[in-house]
């Protein structure tokens, strides 16, 4: 238990929360807009690669961020083109894009950088950290919030913005309508396609940032299949919360903590594979618990 409050552990938690949270927020936008996007894993992977490429190219983490956002947006546009515009099934499109991401990143790793497996280089500029001097001294919040990647702030702010925007902003209303009653938008003269495309592009950008967190903040390199399931965990988070930003924040923190824990307890003598599997098992358990809880809450005599 004091492991959980150990400052070193606390400092490591956001490293795992940020990618899941960012990707999940992107997924939430799609979910609310009525796009069943389960290609988050691929989006994040592409973002991770682009971040390293950009950072290496300009020896600047900022360029890496820019590349990551652009790459993610591009993935979103591809999804929009084949699914929203041409009417392809969203699940099929997602599967294809996940595979595309694996293939493309590995291919470019070899074609552009001439390596396999992992790419390390001194030219890759890391993202650096953001110190919050006011908080730095606080017992729990200090290591948790200060000295972390700036993307943590971005992620939390995005969650809050999304929460407010969905309720109060014109775009938020239309996004919700696109997901729940597209006919209402059609009658209102707003293109459902455009709304969904916008959601996909924004999702791409957020997932790109998630990838950047993985590749130029948590570490300074790119490894094949770097997203390692974070995208799928984000998908589960979106499903659990039905894309509502504030619960999503909570769930992402839960999953991120489990992820971080699994790394921590590796030192305790369990085989590495067990700790690798832990985040997936945690998400499965969370899904079961949530479903059972939901079933119990609904009135007796509900359909089986």
């Amino acid at each position: 238990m004091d492991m959980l409050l150990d400052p070193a552990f606390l400092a490591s938690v956001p490293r795992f929360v940020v990618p899941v949270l960012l990707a999940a927020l992107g997924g939430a936008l799609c979910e609310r807009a009525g796009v069943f996007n389960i290609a988050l894993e691929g989006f994040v992977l592409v973002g991770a690669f682009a971040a390293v490429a950009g950072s290496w190219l300009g020896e600047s983490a900022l360029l890496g961020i820019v590349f990551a956002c652009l790459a993610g947006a591009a993935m979103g546009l591809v999804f929009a083109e084949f699914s929203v515009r041409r009417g392809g099934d969203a699940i099929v499109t997602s599967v294809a894009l996940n595979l595309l991401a694996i293939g493309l990143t590995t291919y470019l790793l070899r074609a552009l950088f001439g390596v396999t497996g992992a790419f390390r280089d001194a030219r890759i500029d890391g993202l650096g950290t953001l110190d919050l001097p006011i908080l730095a001294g606080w017992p729990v919040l200090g290591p948790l919030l200060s000295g972390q990647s700036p993307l943590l702030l971005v992620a939390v702010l995005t969650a809050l913005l999304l929460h407010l925007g969905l309720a109060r902003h014109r775009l938020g209303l239309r996004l919700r309508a696109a997901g729940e009653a597209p006919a209402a938008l059609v009658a209102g003269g707003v293109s459902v396609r455009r709304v969904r495309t916008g959601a996909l592009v924004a999702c791409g950008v957020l997932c790109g940032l998630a990838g950047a967190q993985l590749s130029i903040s948590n570490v300074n390199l790119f490894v094949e299949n770097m997203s390692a399931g974070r995208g799928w965990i984000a998908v589960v988070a979106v499903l659990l919360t039905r894309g509502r930003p504030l619960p999503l924040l909570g769930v992402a923190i839960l999953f991120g903590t489990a992820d971080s824990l699994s790394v921590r307890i590796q030192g305790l003598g369990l085989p590495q594979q067990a700790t690798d599997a832990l985040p997936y098992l945690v998400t499965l358990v969370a899904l079961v618990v949530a479903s059972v809880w939901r079933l119990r809450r609904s009135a007796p005599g509900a359909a089986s």
Partner: protein
Amino acid sequence: MKAAGSGLDKGLGPVVRTIAAWSGVALPLALIGWGLIALAGAPLGEAIDGFLRGAFGGRRNAYLLTTLSRAGLIIGMAMAAWLSFRAGLFNIGGEGQLVLGGLSAALVAIHAPGPAPVAIALAFAAGMAAGAAWAMLAGVLELAAGVPLLIGSLLLNYPASFFASWVVGHPFRDVASGLPQTVLLPAERWLPNFSGTRLDVGVAFIAVVTVLVIVYGATTTHGLRARLNGQAPAFARASGLAVRRLSLQTLAASGALAGFVGALAVLGLHHRYSDGMLVQPLYAWTGIVAVLLVGLVPWAVPLAGFFFAALATGAAGMERTAAVPREIALILQACVILFVAGRTARSVPGARRDDPGS
């Protein structure tokens, strides 16, 4: 909106439209392929030559046989996915079922006592049982705990892989080889090859199984009921079909087939189980996309499977001769799916969301 009639609807129309449609897929793909090859700095002619030889040529057709062998595994996984998808079951856990099936088969084939045919049969049985159980677990998670099958089956892939990785990394490791893999199967327990070739009879097994599965779908009561359950679940319930039993049985069959494929890969191709050997080539995912590509039309699945297998081995050849990374195959594969899926909306019955967006 109004359906607009046009001149293309009559006469040669359908032919022209089909050609136009496939050109709409082939041309962008060719462009993408060319772009990727250029990016790798490889000469185009050598690359294409390497591709063709890698897929179909080789000394004594060695590469063609590799393509066939690989196609067999992909087709097997595709038919496993087909069984599930046509019944409205979004089981994308083929990878986990494949891995556990292969692992179980390997362990049984190595350690089971008795004469070789018995051991081989037991190995297949073990593989099928493991695959079926893992698939049914995802089904139970949905029925009892409300976890959507899509997510549950997918999430189960990971623990399965990790578990297999641990098993061949620790308790059942072939220490002498220093690699995370089992020992080689005893030679008499290998599946025989077609005489005079290096191709194991596994391909024939797959062919037989594919035919059986297609016949099942078209001619049996269970096959019809499963299909109706997938196409019209409310109708199935109101008609009194045993929806849950059908779902679990179909999942079991799908998982068993995946396990069978895993056993085949172990007994026929690699003769041992090594970490990642079934995951790395993406057999399960390629099978899934092959089925999605042909829109669940069963007789077209072997064609798609062969196509993707050729793509993969051809790319390997292209890597050997022109140093083009072989992942180009995966990229092209994904692009094919994107382009074709974009033309056939709702290729999977009962897909979770209908995108009405217009």
